[in-house]
């Protein structure tokens, strides 16, 4: 990934049909972040009511060790940790896509009204259909996608421009939030609390059966991003520059928006709207890789690390009370924001 990165060590691997080019530092950062995420995952698998030392966790993952340990680690805790990794990576990717497209470090799927729309969808589903995992996920998907579509169409005016998209997103979010509010005061308290817990983003209820669909979707969408190639970093350089370099900007932007929204949709359907991972992961990864633009792979690794660590913290910090992971990411996000805004900011390209 590079906008203009003279002076970075770049590794180029050429084979007969394809060649891969990546910065040495970026690859190193990805590896370190991946290892850190794996370490936190092992830690998360080992801690809880039933403590398992890391060595035994790895044995249990390899299919050895006592049956009870395997049951706890593999059957009970592994799906949650796997989903945290997957969803974190998906959010990191979607954040990277949105921030490159909007050319704004505060760009995130939240700004296009996706999360508020998903919440509306979930409330409607809970009232009309039921409170099952899949019903909720479907409601979130439909609501979120509809909101994102409305925001996109309303922001469209000879193309979509970043700042306009953000403000239209705020407006539509406000309307949807008032609709949500109306539902919340009209339904009974238990339903309202259930919806509110979902609305914070939580991994408390995940099971093994939820993992394969999420994994498949994340892998597929990541593949789409790979297939789209380097257009994202070109778009991040600006409308004119990207067009001059041969990118059909409006079409490419739409494709990226679709993939970015789909990544958010998968994450939201699986765990509810987890805020701030998509926002923070790309910027933090960029700080480490020191690339000019926002890179996808480090963002994904950083997202996985952030979400896994937040979920572990949310589970253990006030045990036995389990905080929804979204509450932890929001608090982290607050610190991140204070830092982001107090830094002397370059004029964001908006």
């Amino acid at each position: 990934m590079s906008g203009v990165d003279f002076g970075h060590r770049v590794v180029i691997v050429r084979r007969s049909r394809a060649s891969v080019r990546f910065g040495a530092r970026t690859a190193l950062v990805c590896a370190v972040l991946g290892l850190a995420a794996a370490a936190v995952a092992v830690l998360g698998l080992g801690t809880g009511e039933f403590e398992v030392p890391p060595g035994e966790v790895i044995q249990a993952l390899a299919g050895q060790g006592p049956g009870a340990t395997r049951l706890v680690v593999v059957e009970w805790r592994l799906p949650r940790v796997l989903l945290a990794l997957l969803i974190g990576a998906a959010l990191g990717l979607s954040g990277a896509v949105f921030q490159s497209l909007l050319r704004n470090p505060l760009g995130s799927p939240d700004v296009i009204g996706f999360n508020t729309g998903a919440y509306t969808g979930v409330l409607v589903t809970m009232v009309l259909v039921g409170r099952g995992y899949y019903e909720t996920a479907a409601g979130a998907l439909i609501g979120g996608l509809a909101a994102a579509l409305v925001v996109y169409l309303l922001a469209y005016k000879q193309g979509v421009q970043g700042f306009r998209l953000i403000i239209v997103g705020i407006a539509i979010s406000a309307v949807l939030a008032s609709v949500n509010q109306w539902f919340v005061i009209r339904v009974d308290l238990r339903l309202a609390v259930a919806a509110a817990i979902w609305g914070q983003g939580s991994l408390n209820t995940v099971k093994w059966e939820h993992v394969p669909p999420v994994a498949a979707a994340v892998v597929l969408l990541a593949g789409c991003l790979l297939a789209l190639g380097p257009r994202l970093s070109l778009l991040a350089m600006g409308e004119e520059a990207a067009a001059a370099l041969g990118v059909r900007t409006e079409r490419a932007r739409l494709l990226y928006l679709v993939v970015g929204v789909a990544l958010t949709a998968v994450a939201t359907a699986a765990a509810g709207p987890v805020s701030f991972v998509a926002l923070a992961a790309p910027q933090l990864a960029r700080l480490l890789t020191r690339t000019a633009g926002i890179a996808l792979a480090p963002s994904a690794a950083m997202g996985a690390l952030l979400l896994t660590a937040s979920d572990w913290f949310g589970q253990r910090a006030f045990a036995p009370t389990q905080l929804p992971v979204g509450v932890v990411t929001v608090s982290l996000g607050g610190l991140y924001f204070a830092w982001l805004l107090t830094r002397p900011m370059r004029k964001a390209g908006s």
Partner: protein
Amino acid sequence: MILSDRRPAAPADRPAGVAAGNAGRSGWLLVLVAALVATCVLSIAVGTKNIGLGTVWDAFAHVADSDDHAIVRELRVPRTVLGLLAGAALGVSGAVIQAVTRNPLADTQILGMNAGAALFVVFAIGVLGLTSIWSYVWFAFAGVAFATVLVYTLGSIGRGEATPLRLTLAGVALGAVMEGVSAAIRLLKPRAFDYLRFWDVGMLGGRPLPIAEAVAPFILAGLVLAFAAARSLNAVALGDDLARSLGAGVTRTRVLSVVSVALLTGAATAAVGPIGFIGLMVPHAVRRIVGPDQRWIFAYTVICAPILLLGADVAGRVLIRPAELQAGIVTAFLGAPVLIWLIRRRVVTSP
């Protein structure tokens, strides 16, 4: 989507407003006052149970022990008084924020102030266990002041001044954080959740008259401060450097404005819950009538904002009768299209 071909006029040759001259402006103001009175009468008469104007008059002139009189005196009048106060407060606070940040998109909701008030009220109710408005009104003030200072500080630290874009982003971001934290407190305290879901929506109904009496002094103080700052805000509109060379105390004006906004938004939010968009829409509409002079903008906003809020409240009572749409919901539905229209109208979108 149809592509709009309209190009906005450059700020320099924007017309001074529909009503040119102070005589014209005063005349329009009288018309609007009449409209406000009419809205108040509507707000007292219309509802789930419509009450004839004659009965309304009797309820004040010849008090009798009838249901209609009770409805008017116990329910509709407090609601209308609250609407007047909160509407004026929210509208003027929006006008002040827009003036002091030189940002036409500024609004108490967008700049995170409602979220700040909500966070502190949630804390008061959920963690400290307070339930009477007399105690948590102070928390709403503190929350608004806290959010205002925080957003402004974060938006202006670093190189350069607090640009409108950075303030907007800081407000949205911090608002999201504060909403997240208050959501967390709510989830841990179901009792607070139950109480707060009705506060959150933003509504005029169901609040007794003492609440209006409690917040009135603060709102009046905030309005006085806003009008006191209006003249210097005219200078600040030209930019800090020019304002200084014109002799305006820029820092003093900022402080006055922020205090006024904290008083107005804090009191209104404590009384009726977070209601957005009044402060965004009204000053914009008013500016089209009276031009850029803040003194006239404030004066018109004091009259027009209650018209909008009470109108929204009445509409909410009529639209899905016998149920009610809360005023905060109606204003969101009215305000969002205005915001979208404002942003679509610009050709150059970075402010």
